[in-house]
């Protein structure tokens, strides 16, 4: 019996604001990952071709690496905030496992939105530097002024993919917290077995087809939302028996 019964929404709100304020390392790691992505974006490809009297040197730059590194960041952040240190921080407040999960989920959602917006913008830096070069530049993707709808669709796609990767990271992090033995199984199951084309092990391939081949943004959004909710539910279920604080 207590004088004041804290409501879940209040606890979640408090924890969410605390996490947003305390987990500044997530911001710096995002910045570093996108800068690494930008660096690799300058080395996407290139070559030389020609004849005795004509040589053509070409270089391809793309925004892919900034996005790929952002997705890796989302995945690793999802794992990191399930670790013991982060979990202990969250229980500095009066809280429950559910409020911890919900606030972490909201934190990941907000961070994914920020990362998803900055990832396509990061490639503008590559584009800008390429325009300052002396040689001819082909800009193969229309920009904000030329095609604003496509520009915002790219940002929306980046945000949704980042949420998805953060969700996968979160559930894997929860599994790891359950038992460290999960790590070798995950590495073997996700990365080693598919290399040997063993049937039924192409989980990544299936995911690529399920999400990557979708042509409707709306259906894609629904697929990702359902997947993330399922992943979240799995995380809540598997960490239900873990200690609140070690």
């Amino acid at each position: 019996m207590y004088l004041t019964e804290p409501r879940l929404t209040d606890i979640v709100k408090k924890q969410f604001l605390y996490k947003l304020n305390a987990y500044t390392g997530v911001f710096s790691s995002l910045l570093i990952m996108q800068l690494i992505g930008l660096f690799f974006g300058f080395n996407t490809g290139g070559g030389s071709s020609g004849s005795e009297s004509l040589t053509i040197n070409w270089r391809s730059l793309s925004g892919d690496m900034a996005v790929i590194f952002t997705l890796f960041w989302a995945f690793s952040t999802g794992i990191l905030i399930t670790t013991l240190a982060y979990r202990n921080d969250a229980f500095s407040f009066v809280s429950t496992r559910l409020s911890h999960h919900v606030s972490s989920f909201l934190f990941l959602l907000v961070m994914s939105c920020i990362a998803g917006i900055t990832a396509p913008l990061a490639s503008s830096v590559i584009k800008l530097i390429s325009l300052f070069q002396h040689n001819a530049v082909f800009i193969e993707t229309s920009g904000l002024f030329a095609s604003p709808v496509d520009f915002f669709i790219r940002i929306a796609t980046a945000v949704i993919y980042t949420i998805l990767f953060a969700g996968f990271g979160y559930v894997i992090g929860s599994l790891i917290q359950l038992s460290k033995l999960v790590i070798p199984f995950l590495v073997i199951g996700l990365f080693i077995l598919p290399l040997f084309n063993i049937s039924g092990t192409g989980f990544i391939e299936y995911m690529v087809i399920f999400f990557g081949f979708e042509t409707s943004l709306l259906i894609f959004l629904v697929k990702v939302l359902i997947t993330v909710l399922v992943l979240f539910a799995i995380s809540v279920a598997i960490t239900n028996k873990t200690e609140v604080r070690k």
Partner: protein
Amino acid sequence: MNLSILILLPFLIVIPIIVYIMRPKKPSKWTMNKKWTYVFFATYTAVLLLAALTVELFDKKLATKPFNHFSTEDFKFIESALHLGNLSAIDPSQVIDKRTHDVGDTLHIKSYDNNPLVFIERKSENDGWIEETLFKPILIINEADFSDQVNYTKPEWEGDTVTFPVPPFTELTFTSYQDSLLLGQFTRQPPKEFGYRERQSRQIVIYLHVPKDLIIKANEDFDINYVNK
């Protein structure tokens, strides 16, 4: 990027993460101040926004002076017109020079490079003059016209002999940029294969109107396109 590096990339990223998670907890020697983290991140975001806007302005500026579009069809049209001797159909901007040379009974062709494109059309009379029309070299990369950047040398005429020298060397460098392929999944303009897609190129074309009965002597391996209208 090398494909093997791309395949290994997940391992290279995931393994350090796992090692990081598994590491024994030690107090960090250096941590960035919270305020500075936000300052850095806000500056980074501002730079990105500024870059995005500047690129758009540059893009617009470039759009006023884009690469001249030159399709494969345009190229084929010119080549077809040359083979048919229909020079009037070709855009006059393709002509770099028109010259006339007096000639005797025989024209000797000497070439140091075995494939200049030479067309010869016989006149209906023997007027003792060769009318030479030179067409500029063509270099089209990804349907953009780079022809003006190709170096060339005009044929050298001396008496009854014309010499096609080796064309001077041309080196061209270009950059191709595309936004993330992954993010083009739902865009109205689908992402296409980018970089160095296609090239059409040739050196200058020499089109000669020669007297009806002129004897032409050239190396056996020298290819002459005779135009019969």
